């Protein structure tokens, strides 16, 4: 059943998908940093307030994924920021996250060598988001 993008239910399903992924578990072995996703508001897309997603990822496991204010996501060790539309493109496979970061469409803050070392893990995280059925605010 589809869930609202950016809701607690969405975060919970996303976490379940991550923990179901054997590929993520293998690729993220050794990862021990928090990741924040900042989804910037786009009022004209029926997404009026920015949202933060805080991901507590440790050694191939998602210990917690929760939705909250952007400030909490910005306090993470790695922060990826983009407007709502870009995140939707990523989650619907219209935009590859690696390409998006290379093009500056997704802004990354954090130690670049570390995140490049875990490219496969971040690609699989993106795959996990695509497996969560979502109701998008600009489509409802």
């Amino acid at each position: 059943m589809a869930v609202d993008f950016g809701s607690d239910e969405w975060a919970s399903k996303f976490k379940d998908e991550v923990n179901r992924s054997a590929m993520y578990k293998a690729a993220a072995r050794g990862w021990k940093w928090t990741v924040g996703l900042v989804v910037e508001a786009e009022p004209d897309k029926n997404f009026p307030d920015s949202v933060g997603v805080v991901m507590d990822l440790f050694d191939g496991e998602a210990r917690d994924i929760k939705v909250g204010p952007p400030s909490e996501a910005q306090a993470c060790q790695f922060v990826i920021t983009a407007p709502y539309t870009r995140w939707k493109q990523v989650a619907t496979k219209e935009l590859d996250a690696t390409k998006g970061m290379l093009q500056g469409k997704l802004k990354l803050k954090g130690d670049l060598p570390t995140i490049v070392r875990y490219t496969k893990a971040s690609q699989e995280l993106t795959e996990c988001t695509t497996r969560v059925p979502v109701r998008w605010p600009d489509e409802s």
Partner: protein
Amino acid sequence: MLGGLIEANVDSRAERRRDFDALAARVGIWVTDIDEGVTLDFQRGRLVVHNGLQPRRDITIRAEADTVMSLSNLRIGPFGLPVYYDEVGRGVAMKLLRRRLRIDGLLGNLATVNSVTRIFSVAG
């Protein structure tokens, strides 16, 4: 992003800094699946990043985004040479053979290619 990656790599590892300080070369990187690229102008301890491919390049790397990331994950082995016998290295070598990774100017600039690979490498 590539400029930021090099900066972080050079700042965090002395051996990368030595390569960076010694390298004078113009390196083009063209990401084929997004049709965008940069020219990295290494000037012995200084780097200027230009958008797009600029003239007078010593080498030009053309590959998809994933492959560019794979290049950064090449391990550096004995004598400072990239390791092509592990999983990442084999993947890069296969892409070279299948022309999904092209390095124009490779033959005359092997030392430069190895230096650039070391500067890019985030692996051990």
